[in-house]
């Protein structure tokens, strides 16, 4: 039998070295060096930064909503689509639900739905929105980006129409419970968000459907050719995204102990930033949920550092943007130094950072 070239010595050595260093892991956790830097800088700026309480409550709990939304976005992006409507579900589902629950005197509809039913309704509304998106995208083959963008505008408008722009506070406890509860000493929001990450991570890595989602985003024709029910999975993904967005809405409501039509506004940019920094490829088919977690964590840390530092308010945003740019560049450099050397494919001469990671 002929020795194929791949078993020759230099590649083999490289393969071994690679096995140890796992640049694929590094590639996935591209945000890791930036996180380390952020932690170092933060601990210098303020002694209170590196306390359990600050990290738990102000970093993690404050980014639970972002985390859940980013998981939703990541699932849809991996499947090769976009879901912009999640941002509006964050307001729509809780506002409508709370409006139905609250008495007229407190600004509600007067229907006075049972609060527990109201809680369930939040998720039902998320699922319904997701199902409509899913039908339009998977069934009617409309472009997901623009469909969900229209849905975003529609729902934002409906939220305004229903709630009349009012802020409803003094909510029943079921709506605010997650914001103040601690489970085993850990804020409930954090537990919920971590559970979402773990569930999504395991789902995407260890279930056949999860793998099929990657396949759909990676090469839809090939996915179809290998018998994957592309339309059905896409539909259910949008439903899942809607439900996750509803969960994020509940977390948001619990956090601010009120509902307002503007809650969640403008979070979408941060969601996409977290997903992409976390290694999700916007073209679909690549990226891991664990990477998404690092992306969310990095942004949360930076925002916290900006809050606990003494930067003049007018410059906070400029510095935030500059830090993201720097994080990207260090990420690219870190990857570059490892990855271009070890694993440049002859057909993709440019080491596009969003491509070079080992996905899944």
């Amino acid at each position, binding site marked *: 039998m002929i020795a194929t070239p791949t078993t020759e010595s230099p590649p083999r050595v490289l393969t071994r070295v690679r096995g140890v260093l796992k640049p694929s892991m590094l590639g996935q956790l591209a945000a890791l060096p930036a996180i380390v830097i952020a932690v170092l800088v933060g601990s210098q700026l303020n002694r209170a930064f590196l306390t359990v309480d600050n990290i738990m409550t*102000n970093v993690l709990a404050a980014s639970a909503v972002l985390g859940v939304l980013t998981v939703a976005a990541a699932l849809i992006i991996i499947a090769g689509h976009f879901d912009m409507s999640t941002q509006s579900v964050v307001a729509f589902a809780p506002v409508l639900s709370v409006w139905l629950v609250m008495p007229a005197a407190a600004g509600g509809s007067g229907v006075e739905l049972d609060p527990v039913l109201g809680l369930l309704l939040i998720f039902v509304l998320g699922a319904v929105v997701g199902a409509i998106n899913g039908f339009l995208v998977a069934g009617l083959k409309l472009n997901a980006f623009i469909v969900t963008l229209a849905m975003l505008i529609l729902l934002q408008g409906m939220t305004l129409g229903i709630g009349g722009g009012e802020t409803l506070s003094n909510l029943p406890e079921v709506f605010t419970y997650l914001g103040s509860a601690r489970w085993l000493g850990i804020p409930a929001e954090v537990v919920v968000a971590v559970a979402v990450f773990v569930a999504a991570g395991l789902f995407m890595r260890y279930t056949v459907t999860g793998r099929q989602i990657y396949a759909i985003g990676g090469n839809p024709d090939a996915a179809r050719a290998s018998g994957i029910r592309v339309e059905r999975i896409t539909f259910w993904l949008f439903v899942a995204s809607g439900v996750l967005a509803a969960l994020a809405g509940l977390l948001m409501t619990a956090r601010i102990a009120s509902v307002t039509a503007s809650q969640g506004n403008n979070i979408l940019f941060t969601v996409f930033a977290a997903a992409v920094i976390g290694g999700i490829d916007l073209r679909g088919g690549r990226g891991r949920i664990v990477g998404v977690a690092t992306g969310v964590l990095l942004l949360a840390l930076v925002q916290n550092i900006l809050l606990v530092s003494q930067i003049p308010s007018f410059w906070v945003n400029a510095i935030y943007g500059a830090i993201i740019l720097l994080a990207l560049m260090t990420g690219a450099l870190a990857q570059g130094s490892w990855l271009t050397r070890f694993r440049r494919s002859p057909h993709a001469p440019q080491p596009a950072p969003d491509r070079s990671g080992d996905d899944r």
Partner: protein
Amino acid sequence: GCGGPADAGGADDGRKRVAYSSTSISDQYRVTFVRLLNEAAAARNFEMLPLTDANNDPAKQITDVTTLLGQGVDGIFIVVLDSKAIKPALDRAEAAGVPVVAVDQGPTAGKVAITVRGDSVLEGRQGCEALGEAMGGKGKVLELQGDLAGAIGVQRSKGFNDCMAEEYPDITVVSRPTQWAQEKATTATQTVLSTDPDVNGIFLASDSAMLPGVIEVLSRLGRLVPAGQEGHVPIVSIDGSPFGLEQVRAGYVDAVMAARLGDYATLSAEYLERAMNGETFDLGPTDHNSTIVQDGENIADILVATPVTKANVDDPTLWGNQAKG
């Protein structure tokens, strides 16, 4: 003129056709004002077109106004989103001979019949004074700023900070921008209070946009204590939303600078009617506890915000007590 076909306007029954250009309608303050203004307009038998919502986009507000002019309205109420950027729209209204009354936020460029407004810088000062007093003149205060890309946010912050620097040099101010967003205010409060134990007072640029989250954070941190008891964190805010008044009643909030929304509505309707009849207005004190002053090239009827404390919180003329809910 650019006003479009004149016959498109003026309702047949002789009622005046008026319109309202709002900056946004996504918070309780604006929503309540819409209702109060509609009531005031109805009382004067105006035909009110549906309001236009600029969605916080100054360019859109210009388009809104020119479009309203094209529909042949006789008068316009406007909450000016950007005091300077609105000029082109006001110029066109002037050219079309349509009187404009600015409410709550006036222009510094372009002509209006009169502006009925409060004074954001003064509100900031009032807040500072109330808070300085409640804190006993020393300590560290968290200032939750509004959107620094807009005039109101900047002015309230300026009034507050200038006054703090002048009158309460022993109070340190920690400022955090919130873009009027509830969740940003919540996280900022949570983070600053939990990482800086010295902070013992909070100033909110708006209670309708930020207060529920702030109260929630205090209660989570176990620092929600009514005034007069040990550990109370003095809170002062601007706006006077129903929730704000409720917290004043409960003693958690020390004072609220309540805008006189009801007066804004009735007075601006009155001024618009008079302006449409060709009247002009004189400087000087008015019969409704305010003064008409020169305001750049325009004049303004300045209705100073009412400081609301536990003593006067049940005053039915406060908009927070008029809002539904």
